[in-house]
């Protein structure tokens, strides 16, 4: 069920009515059934995978909880990891793996036949397996008590607002809230949830879907358009994917908030980042912090144990550890997004940016002090934002292109064929203009938001201003919203 479908509106109203009518003790059951119904709307049989992931993690956690010695807990952690990553591998990466092996052997002159699975990717599998695995790691490290109530735990994994596209929640934050579910109908909370949903809808159906028409048109016809078109499309794709995904997150957070559940923030105005490392603190926060805690830091720790000397050749051990951990983490971050080498390249480009940022830090500082320029000056901030934005936009080419060769073809076009061709876009003028105008509005709002959440933007303003803004959003949704059946981009991940 899509958040932007009419079915969801009916579902949302029904669930909220029942939620506030039912006594607190039965609410978890209502939400658990609702979450599975929500998931089964897409493909009923795949609910079994969700159940398999849930029950494996639940049982292994209980088994781990009964063992005091950390080393002995490891085998249960492995079972949990293998089952979840096994599901992910089979449904998401099998074809990539098989094609890559065949490709590798064909380079060596050996021609193999390998099966190709023609199965649909279970929606949200990367999100719920990661959420469940995060819980397993926490229990293994003894930072989280194993949950004994299967219903509560199953709801933690399948909670419908964030089930298919995040935020990837941490057990420490979500599980206690799932266990209590004692929210009363409170004016301020419900209205702030609704405002967030409205903002999310605006981002999705007005900005993302309208920009998507232009971006898809250009990216789907690499031979029809010139370099300038691709440069513009790549910049707009950044905004499209941001509004699509952040729009989903806003609707998810708003929906959960109405029922008294506070989900974690997933985006914090990422296009105002002053560096690539800053970008990753603001973009898909729930995934980047998950990867930092459960992949980057453990990898860095493992590497540090392996390296005995302080220096290897010209490189210090610390540098080797950082380089290896960053490269691996970002290659896997890319792979998490999809079973294509384009995503891996996208991840590696970001890793490269981060490494350059890390190793030039001292030199940049020296350079600024040499010219007597403060790092905090508006000019430097503005240039940093512009530079970071350009780097991130360049990387989006690899994320959006259909294949690695297509991505390089587009890059070469951007740097060599600078012509612009608009006539195939003329019949889409309304959507394109709508998307660009709304993007301007989004930019102004985010500029005012800075680090404040959206729902607090107009908190102390007169009602006339607040309501005018909400009416403007509603009018833009009605006038310019794209109501064709468009899925959220992150569903495919």
């Amino acid at each position, binding site marked *: 069920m899509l958040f932007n*479908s009419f079915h969801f509106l009916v579902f949302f109203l029904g669930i909220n009515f029942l939620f506030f009518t039912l006594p607190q003790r039965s609410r978890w059951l209502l939400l658990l059934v609702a979450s599975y119904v929500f998931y089964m709307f897409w493909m009923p049989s795949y609910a079994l995978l969700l159940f398999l992931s849930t029950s494996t993690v639940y049982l292994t956690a209980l088994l781990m909880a009964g063992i005091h010695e950390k080393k002995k807990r490891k085998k249960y952690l492995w079972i949990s990891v293998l089952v979840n990553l096994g599901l992910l591998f089979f449904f998401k990466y099998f074809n990539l793996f098989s094609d890559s092996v065949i490709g590798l052997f064909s380079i060596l002159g050996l021609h193999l036949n390998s099966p190709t699975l023609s199965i649909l990717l279970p929606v949200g599998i990367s999100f719920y397996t990661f959420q469940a695995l995060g819980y397993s790691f926490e229990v293994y490290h003894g930072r989280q008590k194993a949950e004994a109530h299967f219903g509560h735990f199953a709801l933690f994994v399948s909670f419908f607002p964030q089930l298919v596209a995040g935020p990837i929640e941490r057990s420490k934050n979500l599980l206690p809230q799932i266990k209590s579910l004692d929210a009363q109908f409170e004016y301020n909370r*419900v209205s702030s949830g609704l405002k967030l949903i409205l903002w999310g809808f605006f981002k999705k159906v007005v900005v993302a879907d309208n920009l998507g028409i232009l971006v898809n048109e250009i990216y789907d016809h690499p031979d029809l358009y010139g370099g300038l078109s691709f440069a513009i499309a790549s910049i707009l794709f950044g905004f499209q994917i941001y509004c699509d995904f952040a729009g989903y997150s806003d609707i998810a957070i708003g929906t959960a908030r109405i029922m008294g559940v506070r989900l974690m923030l997933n985006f914090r105005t990422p296009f105002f980042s002053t560096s690539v490392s800053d970008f990753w603190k603001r973009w898909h926060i729930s995934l980047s912090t998950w990867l930092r805690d459960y992949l980057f830091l453990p990898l860095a720790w493992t590497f540090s144990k392996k390296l005995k000397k302080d220096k290897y050749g010209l490189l210090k051990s610390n540098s080797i550890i950082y380089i290896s951990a960053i490269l691996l983490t970002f290659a896997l971050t890319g792979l998490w997004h999809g079973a294509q080498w384009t995503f891996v390249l996208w991840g590696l480009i970001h890793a490269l940016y981060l490494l350059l940022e890390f190793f030039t830090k001292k030199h940049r500082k020296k350079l600024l002090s040499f010219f007597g320029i403060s790092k905090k000056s508006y000019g430097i901030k503005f240039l940093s934002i512009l530079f970071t934005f350009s780097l991130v936009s360049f990387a989006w080419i690899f994320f959006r292109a259909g294949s690695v060769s297509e991505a390089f073809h587009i890059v070469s076009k951007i740097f060599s064929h600078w012509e612009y061709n608009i006539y*195939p876009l003329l019949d889409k003028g309304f959507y394109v203009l709508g998307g660009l105008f709304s993007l301007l509005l989004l930019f102004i709002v985010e500029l005012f938001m800075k680090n404040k959440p959206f729902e607090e933007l107009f908190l102390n303003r007169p009602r006339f201003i607040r309501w005018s803004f909400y009416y403007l959003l509603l009018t833009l949704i*009605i*006038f310019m919203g794209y109501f064709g059946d468009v899925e959220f981009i992150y569903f495919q991940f």
Partner: protein
Amino acid sequence: MKLFFKRILIFFGFIILFYSSLEIWSRKVFLTETDLHLKFSSLEKVKDSIEILAIGNSHLEKGLNPSFFNKKAFNLAYSAQDLYYDNQLYKHYIEEMPQLKYLIIGVDFLSFGYDESKNSMYYVRDYNKELNIRPRNGISYLYLLNHSIFWINRLKFIRYVFNGFPAKNKHSYSDAYLLPDVHRMEPVLMGSGYRATWSFMSESELIKDAMITSARGISLYNSSIENENIRYLSEVIGLAYRRNIRIFLLSAPVSSAYKNSFPEEMQSHFLSLINIIRMHYPEVSYINAMDHFIQRKEVFYNSDHLNEKGAAEFTPFLEELILNNQVISPYNYAD
């Protein structure tokens, strides 16, 4: 909770009032009926005597003029009409057409992957309003919004406001239908269900149009609904076969620029799907007339639709093929 609902009521009250006024105003300025309604009411008058029925999308609607058939015929094809609506229309009318002997179903490269409800065709609502045919994928926001005359005409409305609310002489489709004018640039629906178009394009316009139209069509093609669409088509074939109605799948003439702008794999995939259908239903004939007017741009209204001249030439030719059972090849009648 009381305060919340009170404020919600006031908040939405204003917006409902505002949009209701716009809706009432729009209904005075813009057309409220569609010509799909006219098509159905024209068919009502002649359905008892129809011997040849055509269903499909605009390629057939503009390509087949029933007045050039010697037998009584009706063109029930309509712009962007997909196989679901073809199926539903056939099932709706079959009992009321005792004389029906020939059924022509329009198919093209996009037919098997096309779902009209995903496109923004506002007149989809009329299948439900007029014939009680339920929407293909249930109720959606788009389907609901398509009931609003203001929403459908929102762009025209902005233009209307910017032009200072000029007095509008609201013409109805019925007027246009009664008085077809050969100098008109816009297509006009005739009483036989045929949509007449008189203009044609230059070579360069045709090529541009082919690129835009095919690109849009390809972007809307969804291969995951091919089986569903084949099921709808098969059901029609099965029902028609039981009544001894001869069935013809027809790919109407298109310009070579349009045909060539589809990737070869897509073209051969389409023909393979047609072959699968014909293997299951050998009694079905396939007429591939896509190349019928190759190199003749004056018979095309645009890259993928015939104009009145083209339809006038093509229809008698088609009747000859159908009545004399000359369809001999699954790929092309000319083979």
